[in-house]
C-alpha cells in the first residue's frame, strides 16, 4: 500500500536485464562487437521511452533516477541561462528533489516564485502567467503530486510557457507510466522520470530534453549520452527501465480502470470514519493515490499500527521525517498544523486486490479509534 514510494521489478523486466549484467558486458561507447549488443539494447530502450512520451529517441537521456533528472534539468538550465535571467517559477508542493534544488539555487543568487496552490493542491495557470517576469528562465511544475495525487494542468501551463518563450520542466516521476503524456501537444521542454515508480529498476531514470533546450551537464566527464550526461551507461538498468515503461504504457488503460475502482472504494470506506477528510483533488488525481486525514491522531503512530498488521503506508507527519517538519504539501494546501499530522497515504498498485482494500477498511477504523482514545485532542 505504498506503491508511490517504490515498486518491485517485474519478472519479465528482470529477465531482460540479467544478460547485460553477466554476459554482454561491453561498454556501449566502445568499438568492439560485444559492445554492439549493449549499444543496440540502449538504443531500443531509448525508443521505448521516447514512444511513451511522444518524444524523439535523441531527446531522451538516461540518468540515475528522478532526483538526478530534476537536479540536472533545473540546475542545468539555470547555469546555462544565468546571463539571460535568474528567475524561476515553481509550486510549493514540489518533491524535495525540485524544491531543495530551487532553494540551493536561491543561495546562488537565483530568485524563485512559488505559485500558491488551492486546497486541492492545484496550481492555477493564470497565476503562472502573472508571475512571469522579463528575467524568468524556467518554469518547473510537477505533473502529479506524490503525496496527495493531484494532477496539475500541465498542458495549460505548457501552452503559457511556450507562448511566452520560457522553458518548462515538469517532474513527472509519479505520472509516467500511470497517466497519458505527450510532450509535444503539452508543450513540455523537459520531463523527469524514475524507473522504480513503474516496476522498473531502482537507480535508473531519464530526462527528456526537447531539441531547443540548452543546459549545462550535471555529470561532467566522458562522451556518453551525446556528451550531455557522462558516466558508464548502466546498460541493464536502462534496458529494464525501457521495457518496464513500454509494458506500463501498453497496460495503462486497463490498470487505471482497475485501480480507480479500488481507489474509490477505499476512499469511500475511509471517509465513513467520523472527522476524516480527503486530501488532494477528488477527480484530478492519480488512480493509485488515497490520502486521508483523521483528526485528533498522529500519522507515525497510524503507520506503526498498520505496520504491525502487515500494511506499509506513508504519512505527511513530521514525526515520521528526520527533519521534524510536517508535510510541506499539506501545509501548502492550507491545512492547519494540528491536522497535517494525522494524514495517511495509501498508494495501490497492479498487485493490490479487492481483499486488500476490504482488510484495510476493517483495520484502519479500529486503529483510528484506538489512537483517538489515547489522544488528548479527542473531544470527550
Amino acid at each position, binding site marked *: 500500500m505504498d506503491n508511490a514510494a517504490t515498486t518491485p521489478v517485474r519478472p519479465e523486466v528482470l529477465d531482460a536485464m540479467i544478460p547485460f549484467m553477466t554476459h554482454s558486458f561491453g561498454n556501449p561507447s566502445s568499438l568492439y562487437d560485444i559492445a554492439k549488443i549493449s549499444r543496440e539494447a540502449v538504443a531500443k530502450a531509448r525508443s521505448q521511452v521516447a514512444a511513451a512520451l511522444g518524444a524523439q529517441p535523441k531527446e531522451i537521456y538516461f540518468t540515475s533516477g528522478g532526483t538526478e533528472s530534476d537536479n540536472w534539468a533545473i540546475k542545468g538550465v539555470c547555469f546555462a541561462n544565468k546571463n539571460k535571467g535568474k528567475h524561476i517559477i515553481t509550486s510549493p508542493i514540489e518533491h524535495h528533489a525540485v524544491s531543495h534544488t530551487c532553494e540551493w539555487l536561491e543561495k546562488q543568487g537565483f530568485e524563485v516564485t512559488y505559485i500558491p496552490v488551492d486546497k486541492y493542491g492545484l496550481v492555477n495557470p493564470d497565476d503562472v502567467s502573472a508571475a512571469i517576469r522579463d528575467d524568468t528562465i524556467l518554469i518547473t511544475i510537477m505533473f502529479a503530486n506524490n503525496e496527495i495525487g493531484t494532477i496539475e494542468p500541465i498542458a495549460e501551463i505548457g501552452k503559457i510557457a511556450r507562448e511566452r518563450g520560457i522553458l518548462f520542466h515538469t517532474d513527472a516521476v509519479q505520472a509516467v507510466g500511470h497517466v497519458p503524456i505527450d510532450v509535444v501537444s503539452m508543450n513540455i521542454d523537459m520531463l523527469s522520470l524514475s524507473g522504480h515508480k513503474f516496476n522498473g529498476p531502482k537507480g535508473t531514470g531519464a530526462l527528456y530534453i526537447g531539441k531547443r533546450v540548452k543546459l549545462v551537464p550535471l555529470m561532467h566527464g566522458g562522451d556518453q549520452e551525446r556528451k550531455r550526461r557522462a558516466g558508464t551507461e548502466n546498460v541493464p538498468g536502462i534496458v529494464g527501465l525501457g521495457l518496464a515503461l513500454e509494458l506500463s504504457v501498453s497496460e495503462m488503460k486497463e490498470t487505471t480502470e482497475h485501480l480507480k475502482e479500488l481507489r474509490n472504494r477505499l476512499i469511500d470506506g475511509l471517509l465513513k470514519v467520523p472527522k476524516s477528510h480527503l486530501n488532494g483533488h477528488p477527480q484530478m488525481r492519480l488512480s493509485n493515490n488515497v490520502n486521508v486525514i483523521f483528526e485528533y491522531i498522529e500519522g*507515525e503512530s497510524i503507520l506503526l499500527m498498520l505496520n504491525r498488521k502487515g500494511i506499509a503506508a506513508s504519512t505527511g507527519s513530521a514525526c515520521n521525517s528526520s527533519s521534524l517538519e510536517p508535510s510541506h504539501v499539506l501545509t501548502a494546501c492550507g491545512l492547519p498544523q494540528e491536522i497535517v499530522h494525522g494524514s495517511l497515504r495509501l498508494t495501490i498498485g497492479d498487485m493490490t486486490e479487492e481483499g486488500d482494500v476490504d482488510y484495510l477498511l476493517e483495520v484502519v477504523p479500529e486503529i483510528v479509534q484506538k489512537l483517538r482514545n489515547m489522544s488528548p485532542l479527542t473531544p470527550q
Partner: protein
Amino acid sequence: MDYSETVMDHFENPRNQGTIENPDGIGEEGNPQCGDIMKIYIKVDDNRISDVKFQTFGCGAAVASSSMATELIKGKTLEEAWELSNKAVAEALEGLPPQKMHCSVLAEDAIHKAINDYRVKQGLSPWEERAGKESHHH
C-alpha cells in the same frame, strides 16, 4: 524508524493510558516543532504518586515514553519522580533513535508540570528545572 521491541511493546500496549477524574495535578507539554502533545494526570497520597495516567497525541516514541515514564513514577515520592530524566526513560525503553530523543523529553517535562501543578495547588512554590537540562525544542 527502527524502534526496539520494548518501545513497540509500550506503544502497542500502553500502560496507564487514560485520564484521572479529579486529579491532584495535571501537566501538559507540547513540542511546537513536531506538533506532539502529552498530558499527564497524577493522584498524590502522602507525597507519593498513587496513580498516574497519560494521554498522548504523537509518534510511537512519544506514546512509548509516556507509557514507560508513567510506569517508572508510579508509587514513587514526588522527589523521586522529579528526578526521572528523559535519558532514564529512553534507557528503560532500550534506547530511542537519536532524532526521537526529544519525545522522551516531552515525558519528563509533562511530569514536571504535573508535579508543579500539584505543588502550586497545595500552596507550595514550584520546583525549578535543573540548569543545562535537555530541551525538547532542538
